[in-house]
């Protein structure tokens, strides 16, 4: 799909609407695309190469040079301008590649696994840049398997499994829909009597003990509230901490994909 938006391949069926109008040739100037399979000419100098790619995106020589200088200063890589790409490390090359993707101030930024090859420090730099571009009004499409970054950056997600969309919505909504009345509760006191206090409609999912501090994960039954749980266990336990267990995107991913598996198998 990403390639279709970028007009690299044509769609089998359907059509693309870009900014309310049917897709046209000129739109590629408004898209910035960082493919998953990416690279640079190894023998070419960094600056020349970035200039070349910028000019292919429709920038004039002068504008491209100016914008590049700004970005290179921002990333503190001015000294790389005359280096050949093959002299750079993978992370360094990725940085250059990122610059060439966003240089022409695209309205739509398509990033396919943008953080691969970056160390944590540079990941944060890039992340900050992505968020800044979002705040400046760019639409950003992030394709990744890294669910942590999804949680941090994305406003809305769509989960695609075996070319079928199985989940979409804002990150908040998706997370809410995957909440299932599960709480984690830490306390000191007798574990046995704690267990006895949980009568019907509470389900003990997990328990861990360290010294005399116990940590239990409990799923509430229908119609129960956190207060009911607390009332039940308060007489026997000294409660230290209680919080709701919200599934991470990672867990949602696993759950959504595994739930959809049987259906897929039937289809195929």
């Amino acid at each position, binding site marked *: 799909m990403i390639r279709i938006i970028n007009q690299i391949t044509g769609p089998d069926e359907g059509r693309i609407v870009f900014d309310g109008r049917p897709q046209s040739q000129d739109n590629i100037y408004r898209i910035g695309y960082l493919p998953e399979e990416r690279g*640079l000419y190894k023998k*070419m100098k960094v600056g020349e190469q970035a200039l070349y790619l910028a*000019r292919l995106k429709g920038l004039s020589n002068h504008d491209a040079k100016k914008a590049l200088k700004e970005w290179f200063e921002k990333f503190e890589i001015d000294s790389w301008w005359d280096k050949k790409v093959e002299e750079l490390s993978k992370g360094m090359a990725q940085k250059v*590649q990122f610059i060439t993707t966003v240089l022409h101030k695209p309205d739509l930024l398509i990033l396919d696994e943008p953080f691969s090859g970056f160390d944590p420090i540079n990941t944060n730099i890039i992340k900050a840049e992505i968020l800044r571009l979002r705040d400046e009004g760019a639409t950003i499409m992030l394709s990744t398997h890294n669910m942590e970054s999804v949680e941090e950056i994305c406003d809305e997600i769509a989960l695609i499994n075996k070319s079928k969309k199985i989940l979409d919505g804002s990150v908040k909504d998706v997370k809410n829909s995957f909440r299932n009345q599960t709480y984690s509760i830490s306390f000191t006191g007798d574990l046995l009597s704690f267990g006895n206090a949980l009568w019907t409609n509470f389900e003990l999912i997990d328990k861990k003990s360290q010294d005399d501090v116990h940590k239990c994960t409990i799923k509430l039954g229908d119609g129960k509230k956190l207060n009911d749980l607390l009332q039940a266990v308060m007489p026997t336990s000294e409660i230290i901490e209680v919080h709701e267990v919200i599934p991470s995107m990672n867990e949602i991913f696993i759950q959504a994909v595994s739930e959809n598996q049987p259906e897929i198998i039937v289809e195929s």
Partner: protein
Amino acid sequence: MSKIGIIIRREYLSRVRKKSFVIMTFLGPILFIGIMAAGIWVTQVDQTQHHVLVIDHSGLVSQTEQSSNRLESRFQDRFVESSDITYAFTKERPSDDEFKEGPYTLMVEFDDGIFQNHKGYLFYKKVPSVTFTSRLSRELEAALEQLKVTQDLSISFEEYKRLKTPVSLVQKDIEKQDETSLKQEQAAIGMVFAVIIFFFIFLFGSLVMRGVIEEKTSRIVEVIVSSVKPFQLMLGKIFGIGLVGLTQFVMWVLLSFIFLSIAEAVFNAGYLNPSTLVDAQEMANMGNNQADFYQTLAQNDAFNILLRINWPVMLGLFLFYFVGGYLVYASLFAAIGAAVDSETDTQQFMTPVMLPLFFSYLVAIMSVNNPEGMAATIFSIIPLTSPPVMMIRAAMGISGPQVWQLVLSMTLLVAFFFFTVWIAGRIYRTGILMYGKKPTWKELGKWIIYKS
């Protein structure tokens, strides 16, 4: 600047700036001139000074000179000494040791038996060159001939010379009867152009292929095709590299001229000067009257061949077929590059592209001997083989009924270029984004037919 323009610029500059390009540009003419100079040097070295002792047992070609009381040549214009050869005569063969230590490099021995068995003997310390040996035997032959004429016939040698009637068939084209025909010699000049076209296609076509593979393996191609159409990228690459080739070619021609004139100035080398070449030939002409005839003919023709070729047309056609042939083959090479992942995988697809190229080269060689033959005519029209073959025909001059063949050939080449570039564009479009597997012929076919 249009996108293709930007791409051409990059393809061109990134290659022209390479050290290897600069080195090759200068090294090419130096190597070329070096080989030429080495060739001249070798022939010079081979021209050793020969002192020939003619052992004339029966006094056939020598007689005692009254004044000096020494044996000398019987005929004024035979056994004439020149810069690289001296003659001495004797009736008695010296002993082997005497010869070995003596000043003579060669001994020629014969007696009157030579009229029956037609054999003389040549003794040497070092093997003389074949040309020198034949020159000696020609000399002896001519001397004996003169002897026979003057002794056995009652006419003077001058009269005999007049009797002798050497004949050479001068070819005439029925269309252009006022000219002597030098078709084959002209075709040989066409061959030079054909060879240039062949190597240009071969070298720079595969450079296009390697360029495409490089883009694939470095994974930059998807970045670029998100900005430009694959077709534009392919055309930009083909044109860019083509310009690199043209630049290199023009530089080679220019530098060769410059280096040659420098070399001539520095060494004041006589052999590079055409006027001394003629002198040398004239000197050789004095050798044998029969050889005279051919040599004078050849001498005039060397000029004639060059004058006979219609240079504006020839160079124009050369440029056309040079560029046209390159474009056709380069687009095929680009398609191959797009279809494979690495250079080692190219073999399977290279063969069908290289085959017509080598074949056209073969046809061109054959056409030199038979420039107006069937094969030359047919293959100078078929696009994949026409560039080198048509060079041969163009060198002979194209006129009358051949003009339409030329027009047909040129039209077909242009049409075929559009066809190959279309096919290549379709393979390219799909191929550049395919990693990890080598397509089969069937899949390539699908890529071509598949609608976008």
